[in-house]
């Protein structure tokens, strides 16, 4: 881990969860920067995601949280307590030279809470009542409640992160600046070819139940090849998805093989950002790479099924589409907590309809089991509409913000709206 040495007061943002959560934290970072333009911001994130954190605009230093190191340190306490303590204290001493003036903690996990208090005496977000105090701040409590029982929540996770940090959703749509990298020759040749329509297909998912079957991906690739001239489907995934990509290649008819570019397991996160930046569309389930594509300014079409829900983790910003499977609402309508049940998986998939969206067709037919949502943004953050008109729940977001921030409507009205300096809520 790098040492920290600066005399300037600094702020630390802590996000120790997975890729998707880190990207959903981007709006909070933007809002904090808007609110505190003279502040220095550092980011604490899992070690494998540091390369991505380094692309976050305005982050001076990205500090890796190395779980493996810490696990080994903990094992060291099995020998002798005093030795274990000495080694741990030495490991963390590199962080203590210059504590942060404030740590914004976005995870309600004991490790994250403890890390926040180790880095700063002032913690905002999860754990701000102290590491032993089970009391949670309103926004953190809301998030936990939504995780247990989604109800009619319409607040986007990224906006709740803003709330946790005590700021409004950002005025400027957050985005990453992908680095200009030299890609492997075969990949670089295709993604740099401006005459091709590149459609990224995100094969993987952190949880197995969010994976789209191989046969469906094959159908989508064939449909794209048939209906979109000059299109190339760019297969995206980590090393764990290599077999899926190979299975797709094996199942595809030879005439379509020239219409795919297999990048699975061959790219780092910055390279992936570079590729997404050159894609016209990206299709995938609710995964970290899909949100990376969003952050890179690429339009996405999400297939949200299993436990994924558009209103919470849909693509942030305008112009994106989400096909929401009805399986989730199926449970909610019966008042059953979906997290405690096996999700209902789709029997059919919106393959042709996705291609039609890419083609820009305005009049998409309904698909059995699925609803089409479009992404939007207003003063209260991201929201999604099914059809032309937003439902009443969308407008209720303002009340939720008022309640959670402990402010009256009047106070809210007095806050600056969509200015260059977003209002501080807490």
């Amino acid at each position: 881990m790098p040492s920290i040495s600066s005399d300037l007061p600094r702020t630390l943002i802590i996000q120790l969860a997975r890729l998707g959560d880190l990207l959903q934290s981007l709006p909070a970072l933007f809002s904090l920067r808007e609110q505190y333009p003279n502040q220095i911001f550092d980011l604490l994130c899992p070690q494998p995601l540091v390369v991505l954190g380094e692309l976050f605009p305005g982050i001076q230093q990205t500090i890796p949280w190395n779980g493996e190191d810490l696990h080994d340190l903990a094992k060291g306490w099995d020998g002798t307590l005093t030795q274990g303590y000495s080694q741990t204290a030495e490991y963390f001493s590199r962080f203590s030279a210059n504590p942060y003036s404030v740590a914004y903690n976005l995870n309600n996990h004991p490790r994250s809470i403890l890390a926040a208090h180790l880095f700063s005496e002032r913690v905002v977000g999860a754990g701000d009542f102290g590491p032993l105090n089970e009391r949670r701040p309103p926004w953190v409590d809301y998030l936990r409640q939504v995780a247990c029982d989604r109800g009619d929540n319409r607040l986007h996770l990224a906006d709740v992160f803003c709330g946790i940090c005590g700021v409004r959703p950002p005025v400027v749509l957050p985005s990453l600046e992908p680095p200009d990298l030299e890609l492997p020759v075969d990949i670089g040749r295709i993604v740099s070819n401006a005459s091709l329509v590149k459609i990224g297909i995100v094969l993987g998912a952190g949880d197995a139940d969010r994976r789209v079957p191989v046969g469906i991906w094959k159908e989508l690739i064939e449909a794209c090849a048939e209906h979109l001239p000059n299109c190339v489907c760019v297969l995206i995934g980590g090393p764990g998805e290599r077999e899926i990509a190979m299975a797709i290649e094996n199942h595809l008819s030879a005439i379509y093989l020239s219409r795919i570019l297999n990048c699975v397991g061959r790219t780092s996160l910055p390279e992936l950002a570079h590729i997404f930046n050159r894609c016209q569309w990206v299709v995938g389930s609710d995964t970290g790479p899909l949100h990376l594509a969003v952050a890179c300014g690429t339009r996405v079409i999400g297939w949200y099924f299993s436990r994924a829900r558009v209103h919470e983790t849909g693509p942030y910003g305008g112009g994106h589409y989400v096909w929401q499977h009805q399986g989730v609402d199926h449970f909610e309508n019966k008042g059953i907590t979906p997290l405690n049940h096996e999700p209902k998986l789709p029997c059919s998939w919106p393959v042709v309809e996705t291609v039609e969206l890419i083609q820009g067709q305005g009049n998409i037919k309904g698909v059995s089991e699925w609803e089409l949502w479009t992404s939007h943004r207003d003063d209260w953050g991201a929201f999604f509409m099914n059809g032309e008109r937003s439902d009443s729940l969308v407008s209720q977001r303002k009340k939720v913000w008022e309640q959670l921030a402990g402010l009256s409507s009047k106070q809210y009205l007095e806050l600056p709206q969509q200015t260059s300096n977003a209002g501080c809520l807490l």
Partner: protein
Amino acid sequence: MNLFQKNVELLRRQDPALAAQILQTAGGILSIQTAKSGVPTAVTNNRTIHSAYDPLSEAERWADHQIENCQSGETLVVLGLGLFYHVEALRAKLPQDTVLIVVMPNLSELVDGLSVRSLDGWGERVCWVWGQAESLASKVAHQAKRIRLLTYEPALMIHQKEYETFRSQLRDQLAKGVSGRLHIMVVGPIYGGSLPVAGYMVRALEALGHRVSWVDHSLHAPGYQNLNSLKDDRLRMTVQQRFSDTLGVISLAHVAEDPPDLVLAMSQAPLSMAVLEQMRRKKVLTAMWFVENFRHLTYWQQMIEGYDFWFVMQQAPCVEAFKNAGASHVSYLPLAADPTLHQPVTLTREDQLELGSDVSFLGAGYRNRREILPFLLEKEWSFKLWGNEWDRAGVLASVLQRNGARIDTQTSVKIFNATSVNVNLHSYTGSGFDPDGDSVNPRTFELASCGAFQVIDHRSLLPEIFDESMMAIVRTPDELVPVVRKYFHEPELRRVMAEESRKRVLHSHTYAHRMQTLLSTIGLACPDRIGSILQGDRQAEALLARSQDCPELQTLLKTFPKTDRVELVDLANAIRQKNPETQLKREELLILMMDEYRQEKRDFL
């Protein structure tokens, strides 16, 4: 002054008595030769003690290998002397303050070495301990608690017996000073004869003050045995194997949930090699007490590398067989009794009527018993036969009690107490007595612990446990009836002998004794883990004494009673008990953080 005299003078400064003894001792154990490299090497009984090519390089390699495991604060004790190249190499690699002891049960070997090798420059920084094995153990135990034994095998073989005695004496000496509390996970079998022993083991360990987690797989016995309804043998065995494998994974989950210092498995415990390998990967120490006849049940051969420590109830042939098969640590550990269960009891009139007899036998219907016991019928005494597996009992059917039902521990204790002459024949699948019979069955200890008189068949390991003042020993089946008759008519002699046998059990042969021996054996082999815990190194008082460099830790440690064992989890739990509003100090946050990672189990199964 020649080399020998210079060496003796150097030793005189450390131990005048040793120097004097050396001058009165003749050498000649080692035959000194010149190695290819030009330095002296040694041979005894046609076996080379050091390399014939380059003893110095060989000693360097030995020392490098030994030093890998050594921890600071340990006293290193070298067994095996030779020309002490290895001692010199080790001394050179150790920090100045590390105590290095060389144990010498025979000074002739030293005399040979002093004639050709110089101690100058290093010998004064070695503690040369000499004498009989028993006194050597006392001297070493007196000097240090955290002891790591290092063996130089080629030289150790010269006085192997003396070193073995030293080792067991040292183990017993150290066991006396044990104050630390271990967390031991006992994994028992699904069913069978070793199941009650697992229970006795648990009680003994608890009585010794250790924290015991018993993974009792007998709870799953009905399900396992229900699979016997499958008619296809191959299918049944496959399903039962998978059932057993699942129980192994359940054991692993228990280990993950509450990691013990030691997993102690009983014979037939359903731990597969895959499970044991995973435990090893996770640095969980494992031991198996194999209370079976190694010649009859041979599955140990497939499991031999799975356990760090094996304890067996048979001596040399068994220990050798296990070592040859690849076991790194094998120790003899006979069975025992649990005097809180196996004890004299006063019987009710009804019990005496049902369970009492002049002569009885309790046990399963093995072939030799079926052939020998009928000779006890139709004599001047009443005879009762107890136990199961007596189908087609023939003439014995008339004396078989409770239709051959399995007899539980409580009832067996009553039967032992209610019988004048208890016949104890070890099981054997052939005729007569087992000619290779060595180990002593649990019934021997249980009868003795009950203060019950027994007539027992001879076993080669019996004399070191009990003698003929404690029980009647028969060497051939023909002796059985005359010996039973003799003692049947000698009630006072029976009483005296039985009382002696009970005293012997209480003094040396309870499961508590066995567990003490087992733990101190492991402690001696793992001084930095089990050994240090047993010696109290993890207790608050000892931790406080060693935490001079961590004053912030001292404040926390002072909140624990001095003799409490304190681990990371205990510190973390103590912090979590604080008022929720408390602002934690940095060290407290670090402890809680480490405890979070300690609990991580994501890759355990």
